[in-house]
């Protein structure tokens, strides 16, 4: 039973991380590429870490809760690294694809 739960969690986590990576390859411009890794990956990692938590709690003595810390740090760092990347992309005036709406909302920095 426990093995089933762990396997399902691992599969869910793995597929979300995979989808995030597919987004990284498939999307046409930098700004859209950023959406995959900042979001699809958080849930994927959370599932993988939950699987690790269940596995180590059942196979070893005592509860294993260190994984909560890892997901906490991921939740903190994912938006910040995304923000830093998109900020530098705007600063370098990277092209976004033509059908992007509201490009004039970007203010010029000098």
């Amino acid at each position: 039973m426990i093995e089933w739960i762990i396997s399902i969690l691992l599969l869910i986590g793995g597929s979300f991380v995979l989808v995030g990576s597919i987004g990284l390859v498939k999307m046409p411009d930098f700004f859209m590429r950023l959406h995959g890794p900042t979001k699809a990956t958080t849930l994927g990692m959370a599932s993988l870490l939950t699987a690790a938590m269940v596995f180590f709690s059942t196979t070893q003595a005592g509860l294993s809760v260190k994984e909560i810390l890892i997901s906490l740090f991921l939740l903190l760092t994912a938006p910040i690294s995304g923000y830093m990347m998109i900020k530098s992309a705007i600063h370098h005036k990277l092209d976004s694809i033509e059908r992007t709406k509201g490009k004039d909302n970007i203010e010029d920095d000098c």
Partner: protein
Amino acid sequence: MRLEARFTWLPTPVLSLLLFIVWLLLNNSVSAGHIVLAVILAIVIPLVVSPFRTKQPLIIKPGLALRHLLLVLYDIVTANVQVAILILGPTRKLTPGFVKVPLDLTHSTPITILASTVSLTPGTVSAEIYPWSENLIEGAEPEQVYLLIHVLNLTDEQALIKTIKQRYEAPLKEIFKC
């Protein structure tokens, strides 16, 4: 907005609580020795580092903060599924866009939290905060702050702005009372 803590020996209550929990999690135990050590660290570290830190607004409604946290966690889960569907669907149909959201918040801490939640929730990544200023100056005439976000699939701009303002900004305003 309140900057000063109620007790001088506990300048940042939430940070202390976080330190306490993180120490116990790192050691993976709740034995008496570790709890005592965690309490000592949670009190001493904020006291030692408080001269280096700029004053952050304190959470005034912890209950609401907890509820908001749960809401955001739920949204992160739905966001992941939505973005996964958008990514796997046809790329040609996506209409990305930049949207400027006017904010009522003025202090940098709530704005940072808002920007991070926007990044983690459905289809949006926060890109920039206008006006260009490294730090929002205390006491100066407050300017209208805008948050520039990039949306993966923009359908209704006004509805999106309204959602962000009601769902994420309003609770933050309540929590920090600003």
